[in-house]
């Protein structure tokens, strides 16, 4: 296999990892205001993704880094051409990441609701925009002979792009709801299951429409098969969650996302960024790639270090495999130093300690 093809596949794998992993933590963020009835619920929800969301985002960094190193022209045209869209995504991701950390630092309702809102928008906006971006990469953008993208943000918001955005948004919301049902207990778990079935009513038609639109315009036989399998996996996931098989349902949405990304990258190949101005101006794996020497060095580095990264990320998931909830969550903020009178017994784990407000 040519190294350029190998790196194209590797970048597809990195994006797959990103969407499968960050997909559910976006979903949890999107569902936060809907499934979190009180502060304890919302804390339990955030704690399901707390130890892993930043590790999940590393997949995005490596995907970007691999694109920069292996296909510098792709990176240049993409990041300049999608400048404002990426700016929006970055701002959303920054605010979201900070919100997880800041929300627990002050124990007032107003403060926490504000950051909850930031978590929602910081999750929903990228979940939508990644789909818009990828649909436009597959569709192609106006690009001149110098590989300069001549469109703007509004060019990206075409019907097919928006359909792609809704597809990722609903897929991530479903993936997140199923993840919550897998990782929580009691009432929250039951509500997450119910929500998953309800979200699926939107996810299935939107994702199907997006896959059909992609295959009609850009498909080939191999990706027709992956797209069909993606649809089967999605339906299987919905059937599984409706029957309360949370593990199978999560595997189902994960496989769906893998196959959707495989379909999109398969539709794209051998282009990396098609030009709608003229097919001759398109960036392909050949005219956008680094030198053979660079790719060879990178291949060795990737082969050596990827297993290490996979091992420690896997270990993180193993450490935090327990369900969240059940026993009352301990309060976030340490009790104030009592002024004079002794504190009334060892009660930080008692039910009164984590009433949503009043501290």
């Amino acid at each position, binding site marked *: 296999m040519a190294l350029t093809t190998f790196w194209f596949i590797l970048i597809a794998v990195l994006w797959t990892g990103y969407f499968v992993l960050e997909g559910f933590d976006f979903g949890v963020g999107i569902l936060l205001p809907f499934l979190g009835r009180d502060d304890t619920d919302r*804390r339990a929800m*955030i*704690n399901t993704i*707390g*130890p892993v969301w930043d590790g999940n985002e590393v997949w995005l960094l490596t995907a970007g880094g691999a694109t920069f190193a292996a296909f510098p022209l792709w990176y*240049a*045209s993409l990041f*300049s*051409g999608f*400048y*404002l869209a990426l*700016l929006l995504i970055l*701002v959303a991701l*920054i*605010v979201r990441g*900070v919100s*997880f950390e*800041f*929300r*627990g*630092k*002050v124990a007032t309702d107003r403060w926490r609701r504000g950051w909850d809102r930031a978590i929602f928008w910081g999750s929903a906006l990228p979940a939508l925009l990644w789909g818009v971006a990828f649909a436009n990469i597959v569709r192609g953008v106006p690009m001149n002979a*110098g590989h*300069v*993208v*001549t469109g703007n943000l509004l060019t990206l918001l075409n019907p097919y792009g928006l359909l792609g955005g809704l597809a990722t948004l609903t897929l991530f919301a479903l993936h997140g709801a199923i993840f919550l049902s897998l990782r929580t207990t009691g009432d929250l778990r039951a509500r997450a299951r119910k929500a998953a079935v309800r979200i699926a009513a939107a996810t299935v038609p939107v994702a199907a429409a997006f896959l059909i639109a992609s295959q009609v315009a850009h498909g080939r036989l191999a990706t027709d098969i992956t797209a069909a399998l993606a649809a089967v996996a999605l339906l299987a996931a919905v059937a599984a969650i409706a029957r309360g098989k949370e593990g199978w349902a999560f595997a189902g949405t994960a496989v769906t996302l893998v196959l959707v990304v495989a379909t999109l990258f398969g539709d794209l190949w051998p282009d990396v960024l098609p030009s709608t101005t003229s097919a001759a101006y398109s960036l392909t794996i050949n005219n956008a790639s680094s030198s053979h020497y660079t790719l060879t060095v990178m291949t060795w580095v990737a082969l050596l270090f990827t297993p290490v990264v996979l091992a420690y990320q896997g270990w993180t998931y193993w*450490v*935090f495999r*327990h369900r*969240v909830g059940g*026993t009352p*969550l*301990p309060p*976030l903020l*340490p*009790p*104030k*130093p*009592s002024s004079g009178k002794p*504190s009334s017994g*060892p009660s*930080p*784990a008692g039910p009164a300690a984590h009433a949503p407000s009043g501290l």
Partner: protein
Amino acid sequence: MRLGLVVTLVGGIATAVTGDLQARLMDSQQPMKMAAAEALYNTSSSASFSLFTVGTLNGDSQLWGVRVPDLLSLIATLDPHGTVQGINNVQRAYEKKYGPGDYKPYVPVTYWSFRLMVGFGTLAALFSLAGLWLTRRRRIPQSRWFYRAAIAAVATPYLASTMGWIFTEMGRQPWTVFGVLQTSQSVSPGVSAWTVAASLVVFTLLYGGLGAVAGWLMIRSIKAGPPAEQPETPGTGTGEPVPVFTY
């Protein structure tokens, strides 16, 4: 605290050693940067190193300064009488090599950022040395000034590396990739100036706002004081380790 002081001192010395090794590399690879760091306009042997200079910085006059003889030559060539190229000489050589143009970085910035980088780094190392002396044999320093200085010293390594960053970026001008790509040619053709300006404004406001919130939270947390002794949470009896809830 002593651990921090030792790490700062070792780190400071290691930084000075690697920085010194890089100085020779810089002198041979990018002589303009070395000349601009010292504001040395004309090639000279036994070049001196100035600690401070108040002057016009175009090399014409120097109003006041503290200079260490031969030090620049020693840094750049390991020989106190070695030759260090001056800005004007390098400029002429570059014109021959790369064609007509201005190859001089903005000297006041390179001159002062270099000095502030070394200065803040040295300050951090000196503070660690003083701190290690004052805390010898587990002594607890009584002076309030020591603790105030310790808080201020937190900033010094950051300031040093920021100044170093400014120096290396400004000293390389007008190049983004030395000898290959000039800054004026590195601009993305598809991104308009207002777009870049918009992103710069957005990020400045965003980081400014988040920084202010973080600062407010820190001050709030400091004012609240250390937490009361927390009683051990009674175990649930299962013996299973339960992850700490951070959020």
